[in-house]
């Protein structure tokens, strides 16, 4: 039986009298991988902020009671000389070192001499990590409290997580192994077809919602991007 984790009704967000999101309705079932797509400025990140209760909105955002939500924000730059170590960063969640190390393994830090290398990693300043490492640490940060839902703002494609691993393989693995429900923002339509069970296209208002092959007709994509440019071509430039 399907279990609804999130139900959104008539969600609107305005900043300074500008409508950023207009009357969104959708729901998320347990085990879904929902992709949120739309052009730049469509309000994708704003939608996440509203879902997390970080900004004021009108309408209803109903999460299942007491659900734990993990949040991976858009990748940000940490300055190289920022004196904050990986261990100190993960310690915000106060889970203890064992949990930290287990979670780091879960997101794909594989090392041979486990004890030594993990301690090395925990003592590294956040700012000297590679893009892929930082992304994995951010996912670990979100996973530390054992969330049931993961909100992921733009998993970066083409980031090297080491080996053949891509960020999406990792997300899929987290879903399959740990029963996570995932909502992610993406620009890349290929990824949506490949990994998402549902897609929500927005451009201020809802343009489409449903399984990718049904929801993403040529008509819908045109409406979403407002031009005759094929989205296949468009996405290959990223």
């Amino acid at each position, binding site marked *: 039986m399907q279990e609804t984790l999130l139900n959104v009704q008539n969600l609107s967000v305005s900043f300074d009298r500008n409508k950023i999101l207009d009357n969104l309705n959708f729901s998320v079932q347990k085990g879904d991988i929902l992709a949120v797509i739309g052009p730049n400025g469509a309000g994708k990140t704003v939608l996440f*902020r509203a879902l*997390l209760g*970080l900004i004021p909105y009108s309408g209803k955002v109903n999460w299942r009671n007491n659900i734990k939500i993990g*949040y991976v*924000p858009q990748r*940000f730059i*940490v300055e190289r*000389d*920022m*004196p*904050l*170590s990986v*261990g*100190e*960063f993960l310690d*915000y*969640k106060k889970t203890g070192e064992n949990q930290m190390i287990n979670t780091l393994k879960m997101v794909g830090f594989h090392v041979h001499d486990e004890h030594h290398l993990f301690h090395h990693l925990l*003592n*590294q*300043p*956040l700012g000297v990590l590679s893009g892929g490492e930082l992304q994995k640490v951010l996912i670990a*940060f979100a996973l530390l409290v054992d969330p049931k839902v993961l909100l992921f703002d733009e998993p970066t494609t083409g980031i090297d997580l080491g080996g053949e691993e891509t960020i999406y393989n990792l997300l899929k693995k987290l879903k399959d192994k740990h029963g996570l429900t995932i909502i992610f923002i993406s620009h890349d339509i290929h990824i949506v077809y490949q990994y998402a069970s549902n897609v929500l296209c927005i451009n201020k208002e809802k343009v489409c919602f449903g399984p990718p092959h049904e929801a993403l007709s040529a008509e819908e994509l045109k409406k979403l991007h407002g031009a005759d440019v094929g989205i296949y071509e468009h996405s290959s430039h990223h």
Partner: protein
Amino acid sequence: MNLVFDQNLILSLITVGIVGAAAGYLGSIMVLRRLALAGDVLSHVALPGIGIALLYNLNPFLMAFIFLFASSWIIWLLETKTQLPTDALIGILFVASLATGVMIIPNLEKLGEALFGDVSEINIFDAILAVLLSSAVFIIGAKIYKGLVLGTISEDLAIANGVKLRKINLLFLVLVSVVVALGIKVVGTLLMGALIIVSATAAKNLSRNVSRYAFLSTTFGLIAAPSGLLLARGYELSPGPIIILVGVGIFLLSLFGRR
């Protein structure tokens, strides 16, 4: 060198030591948040407050604090509620305060004290006030430190993890106002910004994690201020500038240890 360790010197050493340490501690957050220059400007805002205190025989520390807090609160409001360019506004606030302060303060000697500090007349009450308020700064600072650091990396991440960012930002401004008001007695309004920045910048060169960074920044403030005062006393120089120069010396040394 010619030093007499009388009661006045000991009280002065305690006062500048604890204020230097508190300035170093808060300065470490200021520098992380790229507020180093804002701190510098903020200290000048105290000048009209000190002027009014001198004119009407009020407590200079209290008036300086009131002016500091009021203006940092105004900046905080402007930052959170409007789209006005904060840096330009801070600049205007700075020159306005400096001009008003210089006009109000009755004579040149008093103006010199306000600009460059004066620890020659520190009494037991000043010392107790400095110790009590600095202790409060450390206790409250320790509670909000981690949240402020997380907010520096990513505001969204901090708020999503339950950090009350707006509230602790305001609290942080109160603490900064307290430390600046205390520090003005030690190094004066012109140099107070340096006392806040210099220890933290040196500590940043030598730290790979936050706990070491905060510890070193505090320690450098604790060392620089009293040793600067001793040097100044020994050679009959003005303490404010010497304290800052000792701090700058520590910063230069830290460059060799850069990670």
